[in-house]
């Protein structure tokens, strides 16, 4: 494998991509899934995660174009050059252009979009070409590649991991996608680790979800044993290492936050049009992320916690309320200074900070219990 001169690479692990336009050769869903599958191939062997945005500037902007298309490297009609891409960086860098004079196909009856996309995304992540003819990053398109059992070659894996390292918990045969609870592997968070902290916690249709890294525990009223899953098992397009999550009951929707993006999920379905930018909720432009959030189903108010302050959002008017942010310590004494996660159950707010959990009575405005974070997991 080779990397670009100067070794350009992304300085963050969560990247966004945007499909700016579509080829007419394929249904849009086929194009969407080809790109999703191509990114997943790289996601599975690195700490990188990808999420799709629908407007604005993404790290990886994807275009279909013919001949001269604005980057001084015109395409050449059908055949020869199929596509090109730029190494990591701002603006044009990281972007991928596909020659729409090719016949893009899901199979091999034309040029396979998934295969070319997976190669080009390798460039967007910082890989140059490989001299290994079995590698995805070999420059010449191989129409005989077995698409049914596609796997990155070891050379590809060595190359991308030389830039970003292995996934946070790399199992020898690559991450499986289990249908039942994931047995704990070395490096995965231990359910009853007394030091366990959570990234985000939310109710969902009567269950409680505890998110951590790439995983989540699922605690339902009907089983005494919490289930442990990869986030990607249920929501492949969601990133790992979430910041916050909350359920709005009367919408049967859970909102999930990471960085300056948020997603709406209903059951296992990520809603179309997401992720959106958190500033569309009314946060000040300087705000980069939130720490925790909870929606009070009685009062129809949603609380967003950021550092030592919080905002309140009115679910009826769908707007951030005036007079915020306020200090967490002023209205939620005893839970701060800052919080990792929070959810509502039995009328109480349960705040999580590191390995501690604070049961807070919003009416009495006081902490009524201090517990271990993972006591909901029957530890």
């Amino acid at each position, binding site marked *: 494998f080779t990397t670009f001169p100067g070794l350009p690479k992304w300085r963050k692990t969560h990247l966004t991509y945007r499909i700016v336009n579509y080829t007419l050769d394929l249904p849009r869903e086929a194009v969407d899934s080809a790109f999703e599958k191509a990114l997943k191939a790289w996601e599975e062997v690195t700490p990188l995660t990808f999420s799709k945005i629908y407007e604005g500037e993404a790290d990886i902007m994807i275009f279909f174009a013919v001949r001269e298309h604005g980057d001084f490297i015109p395409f050449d009609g059908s055949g*020869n050059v199929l596509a*090109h891409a730029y190494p990591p960086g701002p603006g044009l860098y990281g972007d991928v252009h596909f020659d729409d004079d090719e016949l893009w196909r899901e199979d091999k009856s034309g040029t396979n979009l998934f295969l070319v996309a997976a190669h080009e995304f390798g*460039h967007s992540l910082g890989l140059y*070409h490989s001299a290994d*003819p079995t590698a995805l990053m070999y*420059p010449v*398109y191989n129409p005989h590649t077995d698409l049914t059992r596609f796997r990155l070659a070891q050379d590809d894996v060595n190359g991308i991991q030389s830039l970003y390292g292995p996934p946070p918990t790399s199992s020898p045969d690559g991450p499986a996608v289990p249908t039942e609870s994931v047995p704990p592997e070395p490096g995965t968070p231990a359910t009853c680790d007394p030091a366990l902290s959570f990234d985000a916690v939310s109710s969902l249709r009567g269950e409680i979800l505890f998110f951590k890294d790439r995983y989540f525990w699922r605690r339902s009223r009907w089983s005494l044993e919490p289930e442990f899953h990869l986030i990607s098992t249920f929501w492949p397009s969601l990133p790992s290492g979430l910041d916050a999550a909350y359920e709005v009951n009367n919408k049967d929707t859970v909102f999930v936050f990471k960085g300056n993006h948020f997603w709406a999920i209903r059951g296992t379905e990520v809603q179309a049009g997401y992720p959106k930018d958190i500033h569309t909720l009314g946060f000040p432009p300087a705000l980069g992320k939130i720490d925790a959030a909870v929606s009070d189903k009685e009062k129809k108010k949603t609380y967003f916690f950021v550092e030592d302050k919080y905002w309140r959002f009115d679910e009826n008017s769908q707007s951030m309320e005036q007079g915020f942010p306020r200090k967490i310590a002023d209205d939620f004494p005893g839970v701060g200074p800052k919080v990792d996660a929070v959810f509502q159950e039995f009328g109480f707010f349960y705040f999580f900070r590191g390995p501690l959990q604070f049961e807070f009575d919003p009416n009495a405005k006081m902490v009524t219990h201090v517990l271990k974070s993972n006591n909901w997991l029957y530890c």
Partner: protein
Amino acid sequence: YPLNGAVREKDPSMDLLQQYLENYYDLAKDVKQFVRRRDSGPVVKKIREMQKFLGLEVTGKLDPDTLAMIRKPRCGVPDVGQ
């Protein structure tokens, strides 16, 4: 006797090769082909570099395998250089 010798037929595959080496192997655009010279002129050197990178027999010549390779669909990103 004109120094520049007989005007040779333009060879399309030589142009194809020249274009390929310029696009993907950082061959300077103004370097003309010196097929008659025995030693490894810049173009012959680039042919060797390409054949090595792409896993072909390194002959330094535009042999049929090399010609077939440069006609195959590929990625537009160069194989060497900026």
